[in-house]
């Protein structure tokens, strides 16, 4: 199935990606080709098949830890890579006009 430019723009907006007009055209073409390839999954009757919702082997279960306080990063460690900060906060551009 072919993706329209409009569809590409809609997806890019959902994914918070800005694309150049050239990227929009390239992606429309390439994503259409990939989607055409995955169409082959429709050959299969999967109506009675359970989806594989996790990758654990049979008999394995997720191991949850006890809900207890544990050591974590100190604020200065967590903030060390911040592009902008104010005190112990991450600073971001204005959200509300």
């Amino acid at each position: 199935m072919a993706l329209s430019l409009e569809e590409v723009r809609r997806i890019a907006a959902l994914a918070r990606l800005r694309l150049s007009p050239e990227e929009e055209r390239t992606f429309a073409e390439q994503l259409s080709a990939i989607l055409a390839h995955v169409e082959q999954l429709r050959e299969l009757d999967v109506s009675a098949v359970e989806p594989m919702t996790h990758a654990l082997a049979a008999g394995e279960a997720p191991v949850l830890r006890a809900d207890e306080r544990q050591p974590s990063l100190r604020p200065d460690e967590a903030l060390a890579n911040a592009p902008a900060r104010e005190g112990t906060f991450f600073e971001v551009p204005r959200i509300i006009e």
Partner: protein
Amino acid sequence: MTRTPSDLTALSLREAGAGIASRAVSSRELVEASLARIAATDGKLGAFLAVAADRARAAATAADARAAKGDRRSEFDGVPVAVKDLFATKGLVTTAGSRILEGFVPPYDAAAVERLEAAGAVIVGKLNMDEFAMGSSNENSGYKPCANPWDLARTPGGSSGGSAASVAARQVHGSLGTDTGGSIRLPASFCGVVGVKPTYGRVSRWGVVAFASSLDQVGPLARTVEDAALLLGRIAGHDPRDLTSSTRPVEDYLASLEAGARGLRVGIPREWLRGGLDAGVEKIVRGALAAYERLGAKLVEISLPHSKYGIAAYYLIAPAEASSNLARYDGVRFGLRADAKGLREMYAETREKGFGAEPKRRIMLGTYALSSGYYDAYYLRAQKVRTLIRRDFDEAFRSCDVVAGPVAPTVAFQLGERTQDPLQMYLADVFTITCNLAALPGLSLPCGLHPESGMPVGLQLVGRPFDEATLLRAARALERETPPLPAPPLRAGGAR
């Protein structure tokens, strides 16, 4: 006898470790030989994104002090290794091969890095890779391409291209990579080294930059099966910080390593030796299978009828998970931030500037597959096909102990050959991808040089869940029968 640095870099991980234990060589000498080899070769190879010489020298000095006291931490205490730049390394820049993480210095080590260092391994640097581990040729690196040491005009494979190239080129004695759809096994095959993708849950993913969380797995690359077994034995095991990490005890992979292949049932999927396979690759793979028969293994024809749907299922599931995992790169807490007036503009501009084409393509694909109205048709259907692929293997393992076949349809392709056609690039993973979808352990073993191109060809082995021991034993049995590969020439055009 005088010892030259090239003698030292040619040692296997185990040999180098034994040399330190017997005080025949010091860790410091090995690290200097490794750093000198990197300095001499990496300009044309491009395997490293960062070399951590001071940190490595300090670690070597500590390893030598332990050796002097007879207080060794492992068989490879003091031996130089390197890790893919996807692993967080405390105080050492970690980029995941992406410009969006340029200059990012993690405040902690990945679990696998912690374990390697706890065993005394000396990490000399961070290895080149496809951006966010997305790619099959290392050409999606946000920094520079990596070449294949057998022919510098060819790709080393990806995404762990630097991890394979550095081990093959004798820059380090072993490395760590990650494998989401073939990213350890494909470069291992292309570069002529051993690569192991363990069972999902065998090695902690904590501190590994996430790509597709239900498929990602950490594993070793090395020049011998024994070295790979040594590394895997140390990095495997439960880690409470990764809830998918298994509590099963780690087997002693060395205990059964030399047990041979007699009586082993080797399953040959009839779908894997059909059309589309390069004739020279097929010849070498069939030669390896014949060798198994000579060793007393029994070849069993099996069928994996849904493996042909692997690529299609993977390219819905992996991008869907990636689109979610990569949402965190928004310019707020770490990494690149573009200047913009409002928050939304800042997000979009940061992601436009920071991501290369492949992550963008996969974020788009994943967002689409998960978006309202398409979820059932794409993502859910792919998850159901994933069940069918897993069932194929369950059924196959009733009549065989390991599955064997090619790693890739071809040898390493030329740099630039597939960069314009993402779908062609994706097809390099056609034989490796089902192993990730089924969450099974897989291994790539060098088994010869291609008759025309002279490039290495790997045999792929896939095992039952958590049966890495059988996989390694089977690989070792064949390795003993296979003449070792010569050192790669590090020239464009290869050996001929």
